[in-house]
């Protein structure tokens, strides 16, 4: 897909994130906007999937480990055609398929696993990737993590096991926005040197700008060419696309009011 179309998809995903969070009245805006370019590249360029057949046996698997950015997952699924965009307005509402944190129990089309408690998704992705190795399937597993999430010890248990079993069909994308709820990640609990941490655990590590569509495309391509599991440290701006709230961790877990929504939509950058 050409970059113009990808940019349009990213714009539309951000728009739907804002609209759905406003309708919900609560939820996590900052991370959802920051990840919009990564999700665009995944859903419209990288992942082999069939929105009209969500359980297609050869599909690539997307494991969202940070369940709180569900809005960007739902907006991407809707943009890809898994369900109508109008359904995004049911986010976080009673009886919705779009739970506050993703839930397979509520039958969201295209959803691979429930998530919401941090630090669990990489293990699930390892289980999926190892299953595919056993079955000699060539599909890939992509997991998405927050940087603050890497403070969970279970992530490193999983990282060790992915390298042990040489799961080069696994790509972990780390949303490196340097922010978590209490403030800057390096103040709350130091993560650096992050690249060498992953390298020392036996991973192929790629760093890129996670808000650049071409850089994400290149990083994912490079990840498929390794004989090790790959970690993509994707530097993003929390709230990317809406200048007024960029890199402000107060917008981690907040939804826009009606006034804010119209201001943010007007200010939304196409690129």
């Amino acid at each position, binding site marked *: 897909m050409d970059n113009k179309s990808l940019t349009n998809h990213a714009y539309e995903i951000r728009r739907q994130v804002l609209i759905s969070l406003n309708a919900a009245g609560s939820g996590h805006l900052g991370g959802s906007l920051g990840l919009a370019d990564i999700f665009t590249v995944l859903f419209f360029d990288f992942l082999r999937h069939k929105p009209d057949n969500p359980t297609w046996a050869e599909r690539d698997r997307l494991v969202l480990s940070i369940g709180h950015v569900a809005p960007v997952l739902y907006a991407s699924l809707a943009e890809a055609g898994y369900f109508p965009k109008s359904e995004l307005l049911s986010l976080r509402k009673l009886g919705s398929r779009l739970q506050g944190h993703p839930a397979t129990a509520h039958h969201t089309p295209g959803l691979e696993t*429930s998530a919401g408690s941090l630090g669990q998704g990489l*293990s699930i992705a390892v289980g999926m990737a190892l*299953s595919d190795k056993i*079955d000699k399937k060539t599909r890939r597993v992509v997991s998405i993590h927050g940087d603050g999430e890497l403070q969970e010890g279970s992530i490193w248990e999983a990282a060790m096991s992915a390298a042990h079993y040489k799961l080069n069909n696994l790509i972990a994308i780390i949303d490196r926005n340097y922010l978590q709820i209490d403030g800057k990640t390096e103040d709350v609990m130091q993560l650096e040197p992050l690249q060498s941490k992953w390298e020392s655990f036996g991973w192929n590590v790629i760093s890129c700008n996670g808000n650049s569509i071409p850089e994400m495309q290149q990083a994912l391509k490079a990840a498929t060419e390794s004989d090790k599991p790959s970690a993509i440290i994707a530097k993003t701006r929390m709230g990317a696309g809406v200048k007024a709230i960029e890199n402000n961790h107060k917008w981690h877990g907040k939804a826009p009011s009606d006034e804010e929504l119209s201001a943010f939509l007007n200010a939304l950058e196409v690129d």
Partner: protein
Amino acid sequence: MPAYKQLKPTRTGFGEGLVEAGKTQKNLIALGADITGSVSMDGFAKAYPERFFSFGIAEQNIAGVAAGMALSGKLPVFSTYAVFSAMRDLDQIRISICYNNVHVIIGGAHAGISVGPDGATHQALEDIAVMRVLPNMTVLSPCDATQAKLLTQKAMELNSPIYIRFGREAVPDFTDENQAIEIGKAQVLKSGTDIALFATGHMTWEAIRAAGILETEHKIHAEVVNFHSIKPIDKETIIQSAKKCKLVLTAEEHQITGGFGSAVSEVLSQEYPTKMYILGVNDCFGESGQPDELMTKYGLKAENIVENALKLIKA
């Protein structure tokens, strides 16, 4: 003393059940947590090396990996000491396994105080409570090695999470290879009219012994019911026995709080209020000692069942 075939640990039955199931259940995958031999998964690892994967000492990861495999159509089983397999990874079991409602078999080995000299850290007395509170979870607790083997094979037939509890010690292996066994159905081992003894795991043998003592020494006809399934629990049998006997004593190698006795009382208090005594460990940690010494000190022997049954009858 009633008759039994041999002394055998329930964990051995689990291992045999896995090897047997592996013959036909081609998607069965075993995940090792470093103590593979100790939890009797070494037989499976040897029989099907291509379906055994070692994950080291990392219970959180192993539970998540099992969930991921199940989401990919495998039937993963992992087992370690119950203190770890049920509690070190509880959040992964809750979200990755139970919320996804995937078919993962979790073995809880070395459960109960009869673990012995290792002491309190390794004596799981809380696992039934924490496992049975989880939505979608099935909780099984076989009474001997034969039953452990059969239940392990039965566990393959469900399509949801299962926790199976085992002991460390060799205990009487007394049930029949051809017994009728169904998840969710209790087994009336001895019919009686004066008091119903409901037991699970190792305590079933103690209940059988207790019934013998009550019969010969006190002319009391106790009914003995084995509950290999704690969740779902067999309400029908509980109520039937309670109606017949009027008194119920439950016995488990577990904390009184939240365990098997609690599950029975949840049924009876709401459906057929019956005077009960819950025999178990009374809100304390265990300690080092020989298994039999500990069972005696913590009041988990047939003699303790007899004593409390008599009190219940006289009250």
